[in-house]
């Protein structure tokens, strides 16, 4: 029994790794194969996986997870500025510091549940955003964003070599962290994050979190103190977000306050719900859809549409362009909104539920056919 479960885990992980690492190949036909977008898929994947541990398992809806993205980013950039361009210390510090912030935010917010918890986290998000935007300008450089300069001390790097001519780029022991190598690094991180999330889902700890979601009162009556479990879930998801924030800075060494805006926290909620709350793969699907729309759909302009509908007669081509135009380019939010509405109305369990339904239907028809054959 146990062995079977492990075996299952292994196949899951192998398939998952294969899918993630081969993204440059199978995303090519839909125009999504370029390093920046691939990195975004992986990074936001980590963010959503972590968020799902809190929201999916315990049902606590946090509107403040962008805080940890921001903390992670700023920490990583400061590590690049002060210590070294190597990404390992940067990521370690990002995860650590966002964990510490998560303990503080979680300790206060988790005193309440339901909508009160959501509002508390929203308040924290707004507070941290304003801190980064104006109050802590010396640390965050406000609206302009924190960037590397040639004058940064970078003490560890300076011990080994003199400063180069231009701006140094982030690296992992000599491997540049931009472009495809940056994507593979993020992808490995995503696989590790997914593995951890799989472990949490299948562990007794995960079971307790699920119990909190289904009925916290009953759980308390049986003698469990739920607060430590909730806090651990909150901190774990905060650290995942910190890792994601750190990776953002790794692939592009710049941190801006807008990463901490409440809309960024809302985005991850959308991603999770769109894909399927509480499922292992759902949040990743949500990430892929939203990031694809944001980056590819938003770049479609009139000229692109005209070439797309080139095969049609001129009058039809013109009218098609007029019809489609509001849904692409600046209007990509409209498309996202429509998809989101459709999913929430018809598939409350997210896109994953859609797959499940399809699978059920097919297996049912198969069974019926089998029965038929048996009858004959």
């Amino acid at each position, binding site marked *: 029994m146990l062995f079977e479960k*492990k075996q299952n885990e292994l196949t899951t*992980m*192998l398939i998952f790794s294969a899918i993630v690492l081969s993204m440059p190949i199978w995303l090519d036909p839909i125009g999504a*194969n370029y390093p920046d977008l691939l990195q975004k898929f992986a990074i936001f994947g980590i963010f959503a996986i972590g968020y799902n541990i809190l929201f999916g398992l315990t049902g606590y809806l946090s509107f403040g997870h962008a805080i940890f993205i921001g903390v992670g980013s700023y920490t990583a950039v400061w590590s690049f500025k002060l210590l070294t361009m190597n990404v390992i210390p940067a990521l370690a510090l990002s995860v650590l510091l966002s964990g510490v912030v998560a303990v503080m935010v979680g300790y206060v917010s988790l005193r309440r549940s339901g909508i009160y918890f959501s509002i508390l986290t929203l308040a924290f998000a707004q507070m941290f955003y304003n801190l980064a935007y104006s109050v802590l300008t010396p640390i965050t450089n406000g609206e*302009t964003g924190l960037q590397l300069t040639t004058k940064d001390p970078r003490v560890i790097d300076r011990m080994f070599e003199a400063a180069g001519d231009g701006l140094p780029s982030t690296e992992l022991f000599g491997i540049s962290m931009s472009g*495809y190598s940056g994507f593979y690094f993020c992808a490995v991180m995503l*696989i590790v994050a997914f593995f951890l999330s799989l472990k949490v889902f299948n562990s007794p700890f995960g079971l307790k979190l699920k119990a909190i979601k289904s009925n916290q009162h009953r759980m308390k009556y049986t003698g469990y103190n739920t607060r430590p479990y909730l806090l651990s879930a909150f901190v774990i998801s905060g650290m995942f977000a910190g890792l994601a924030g750190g990776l953002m800075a790794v692939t592009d060494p710049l941190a801006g306050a807008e990463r901490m805006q409440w809309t960024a926290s809302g985005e991850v909620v959308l991603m999770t719900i769109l894909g399927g709350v509480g499922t292992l793969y759902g949040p990743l699907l949500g990430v892929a859809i939203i990031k694809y729309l944001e980056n590819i759909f938003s770049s479609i302009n009139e000229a692109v549409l005209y070439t797309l509908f080139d095969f049609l007669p001129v009058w039809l081509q013109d009218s098609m362009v007029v019809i489609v135009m509001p849904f692409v380019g*600046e209007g990509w939010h409209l498309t996202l909104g429509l998809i989101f509405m459709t999913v929430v109305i018809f598939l409350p369990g997210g896109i994953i539920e859609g797959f499940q339904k399809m699978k059920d239907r097919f297996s049912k028809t198969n069974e019926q056919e089998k029965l038929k054959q048996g009858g004959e």
Partner: protein
Amino acid sequence: MDNKNKNNISRRDFVKTSATVAAVSAVPMFFTKGAYAKDFTNNPGRAGSVTLGFNVPQTGSYSDEGADELRAYKLAVKHLNGEGDGGLMNTMKPMNLKGNGILGKKVTYVTGDTQTKSDAARASAKRMIEKDGALMISGGSSSGVAIAVQGLAQEAGVIFMAGLTHSNDTTGKDKRRYGFRHFFNAKMSGSALGPVLKEEMGTDRNAYHLTADYTWGWTQEQSIKETTEALGWNTTATVKTPVGAGDFSQFITPILNSGADTLILNHYGKDMINSLTQAVQFGLRDKAVNGKQFEIIVPLYSRLMAQGAGENLKGILGTTNWDWQLQDEGSKAFVKSFGQEYGFPPSMAAHTCYVQTLLYANAVENAGTFYPPEVIRQLEGFKFDGMGNGATEYRAEDHQCFKDVLVVRGKQNPSSQFDLLDIVKEVPRSQVEYDASIFGGELGPYKA
């Protein structure tokens, strides 16, 4: 027990396998990267066309400017490809453009939305460079964004021709070898405004600053403050306001009792329209403080903002980079071809973006190659005329263009919805020049 052992092995196997998979699939990427490094990013090679990336704000406070910039880029591409009436290609001197694209390759373009956010702007610029193969990125409308994208351009080895960006930092402490700015800056605005302010408002005033809280606002506040304090003015207070605030009333009320008699609005785009409108609604301009008429100054001005602010802008002083009412050959040619295309005159944002595109194309023609270091050397120290601002020079030390600056005033009796600004003075280039080293910063290497 036996089972457990097996498990351990299989997990280790799993780690090994996934590591191998990662390594194997990464290998080809390293090789391709090495292959690219030999020439340069997005080398068009023998392709029949080249792609330029136009990255402008299509949403947010600066979207009006962004829309006009995009119009200008489309027009520039048209003219480069030999379509339309050629616009400034008829007046630019010296010029090597032939109207057959750039180096004989047809010019195509991709667009993106910066959302006036550094993150979004960089993501959009990266898409242009990595996916669409853009050889040059242009755009802006916010200095924060311009500086962020300029940094990226340097890393990627792609030239960035800044659009509307007015912060001293763009070609000051954050200047980059791969970034070029045709637009003027806050320091030049200050130098141009100084004498006019002295003449019109005297040497004894108390100024109150409202400043957009990012790099552009900061440097403009500093430059204007230096100018006015040199005239003998007092600075009562400087208050930072968030970008895109919408409602500025909480910042304007304190001015009424501050004892200040001059309000300096370091705002731009829709922010400036909102803050100015509210300042006028609060009755600031009807007040008299210390026996002097209360005055409002908007150091950076544009016709698009004047259209938005309407009545409220009448009589208010400011500076612009260019105005469509200028009567030199270049300006007339540009206004004519822009007007024919879109039915209304261009803004200064449109002008600078159009000129930047032509300047890049011309530099490539001069260099005879798209190889960025060669193109950069052509642009550095390039002297030209006939582009609407008189004789202009791209200073090699900081990649800032030097040219005449216009001091303007909101017109009292506009004859049309576009005729909104009176040109008070064309301040000659010599008066706004400054030493390139005062802001610090380093350009960095030619080879990215």
